[in-house]
């Protein structure tokens, strides 16, 4: 037995060094790579939750209609029924969260209307468009049209 292992030290020593190196690698790897890395693919699964938790700016038209019942009723019956509230009024999640403190800005109706309805050859032909200079001579749209229910 003793004779057999007498000269084995030169094999055991590198083996110990190799094993120690392996253990250090595994230890460092488990320390540095998050446990959820690779759960669904080559990425950190926790990133999904972080991206999900970002704050909202646009509340969604259902939230608006929850309080502004009268305007929502007008809007639903009109030609603009498929244009969401925040498409014109801007992001309102902060307003919905604290409606006393945060008020949406008042809108400049002329530029708002022409932003969509100004005549342009690239716009699809089914879409109602006017050359505002000819159409009203610069008069405000709201004199004739009600934005929530735009009929003459």
């Amino acid at each position: 037995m003793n004779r057999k292992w007498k000269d084995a030290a030169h094999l055991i020593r590198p083996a110990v060094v190799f094993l120690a190196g392996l253990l250090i690698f595994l230890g460092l790897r488990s320390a540095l790579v998050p446990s959820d890395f690779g759960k669904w693919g080559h990425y950190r699964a926790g990133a999904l939750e972080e991206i999900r938790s970002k704050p909202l700016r646009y509340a969604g038209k259902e939230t608006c209609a929850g309080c502004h019942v009268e305007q929502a009723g007008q809007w639903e019956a009109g030609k603009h029924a498929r244009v969401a509230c925040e498409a014109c009024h801007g992001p309102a999640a902060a307003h919905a969260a604290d409606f006393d403190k945060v008020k949406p800005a008042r809108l400049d109706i002329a530029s708002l209307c022409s932003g969509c309805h100004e005549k342009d050859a690239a716009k699809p032909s089914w879409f109602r468009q006017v050359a505002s200079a000819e159409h009203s001579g610069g008069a405000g749209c709201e004199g004739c049209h009600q934005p929530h229910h735009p009929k003459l």
Partner: protein
Amino acid sequence: MDTSRREWLTGAGKLFVLGFATAAGVETSGQASLNSGGYDVRKHYWAMTIDIEKCIGCGNCVRACEKENGVPEGFFRTWVERYEIKGADLEHPQVSSPDGGKHGFPPSNRADTKQFFVPKLCNHCQDSPCVQVCPVGATFDSPDGVVLVDESYCLGCRYCVQACPYGCRYIHPEKRTVDKCTLCYHRITRGLTTACCEACPTQARVLADLANPADPVHEFLRTNKVQVLKPHMATRPKVFYRGLDGAVR
């Protein structure tokens, strides 16, 4: 010689124990759940449909995206292009996108060209080149079909910016990491639509859930001729265009 080896082994042993202790600490904090807040990633597969015949180039989507996602000035997660094509010259369309179309387009009433608007955004490809080239696993396909970026992993190496055939990525000037459309992941996982779809006045853009049999997208895909951008790139995009002209690149 022997002493120094002993010292080395002792040191390595300490490091090893320290490593495992840290790992144990990380494990308890880094948990992500498959089904959180009533949202199950396995039950959705997100896409978008864009109807060229409905886009009026108002720029509402670009402004909404900027406000919802804090997109820095001069960069775009979505933008609108105006194409002008003269006759049969499909190879040389004039493409303009002033400030990404954020404030609309200067009115043009040229009668001698064909004109239309093309809204663009990340195509959330099923075989995304950007995901394939990321060396650190910072860009990935989520199980519900959205190409996302883990900001804490991104090195800012720009491989993905070069790899995207659609030009949908940029380096955020302050964070110095890559930034792109998340398909408003923070909204769609809470039952809302994306900011661009919410703000689109003509429903030219519609968020779609391919995994939901009741989603109108299936009717849309069945009854319309649709096209994706650069199909020859074999990226299998999930933004489906209706009425897309052959000149669009």
